[in-house]
């Protein structure tokens, strides 16, 4: 697959995303500066973590008006694969490609740690190599990861199997106690109705190299490669 990694002023996980896709997964990758409009020939686009435009006003609020995001909307409408991680997830919600919003964590602190995530469904292009109920260990690093959506919207997400990852215990149990940031229904990652746009707060690109201990993050990328074609 051909991938683009969008770089905003303030992105800081762009190199990690590039490294994961290019060096570990052997993909064809190029950076896309936020003012560029050329997404031609790409099969997948990743919005990396960081603090696009300094997170001024709200995380992702200003980034979503950049020229590359206009093109991203068209790209996603044509079925292209989009993965937004952390700040990338925040941009996708501001852009309206994913429902809801990410607000400040309830626990009064920035959270930076490895957390267990339960895979809710394996029948998506992002989880095809996982089993439903499987627990992945993937780190989070965020201050605004508290996923908010009204009850009707949450019910709709669940009904359409759009909730892909939830914070859980090591054994895979979803409880209030292990909700790190106050997210509605422990939600850590969702996809759009069409199933081609993923947003998640945890960082799979940080768990792809065996040197760092775990490689659970690879499964998400490998699922895309398996589903869409490597």
């Amino acid at each position: 697959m051909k991938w683009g990694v969008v770089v905003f002023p303030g992105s800081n996980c762009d190199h990690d995303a590039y490294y994961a896709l290019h060096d570990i997964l052997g993909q064809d990758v190029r950076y896309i500066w936020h003012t560029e409009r050329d997404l031609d020939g790409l099969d997948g686009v990743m919005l990396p973590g960081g603090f696009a435009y300094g997170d001024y006003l709200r995380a992702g609020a200003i980034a979503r008006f950049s020229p590359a995001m206009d093109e991203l909307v068209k790209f996603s409408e044509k079925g292209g694969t989009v993965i937004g991680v952390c700040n990338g997830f925040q941009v996708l919600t501001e852009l309206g490609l994913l429902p809801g919003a990410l607000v400040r964590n309830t626990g009064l602190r920035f959270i930076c740690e490895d957390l267990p995530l339960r895979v809710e469904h394996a029948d998506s292009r992002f989880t095809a190599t996982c089993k439903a109920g499987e627990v992945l260990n993937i780190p989070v690093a965020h201050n605004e990861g508290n996923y908010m959506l009204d009850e009707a919207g949450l019910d709709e997400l669940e009904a359409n199997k759009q909730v892909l990852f939830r914070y859980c215990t090591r054994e895979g149990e979803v409880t209030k106690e292990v909700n790190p940031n106050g997210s509605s229904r422990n939600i850590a990652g969702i996809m759009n109705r069409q199933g081609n746009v993923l947003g998640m707060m945890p960082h799979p690109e940080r768990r792809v190299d065996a040197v760092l201990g775990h490689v659970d993050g690879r499964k998400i990328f490998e699922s895309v490669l398996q589903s869409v074609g490597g």
Partner: protein
Amino acid sequence: MVVLVEVMPKEGILDPQGKAVGNALRQMGYEEVGEVKIGKIIRLELDETDPDKARARAEEMGRQLLANPNVERFRVVFPEEAVA
């Protein structure tokens, strides 16, 4: 003319920042303090002299960028008594 856009967290949306400040105030002895909410004020200088037009434009900006309707509400006010 100058208009202010006040942005506040919506009812039912947890505001951890406001909660922390409320706790601090009560700890300081201001026991009468109930719920505290923290929002923001955005001051706009507009090249416009008609208040109705200014308000309409600022409301449009509020909807498009300044507030996120999922979690925030906003209103446009004129700054007669504000610090701005």
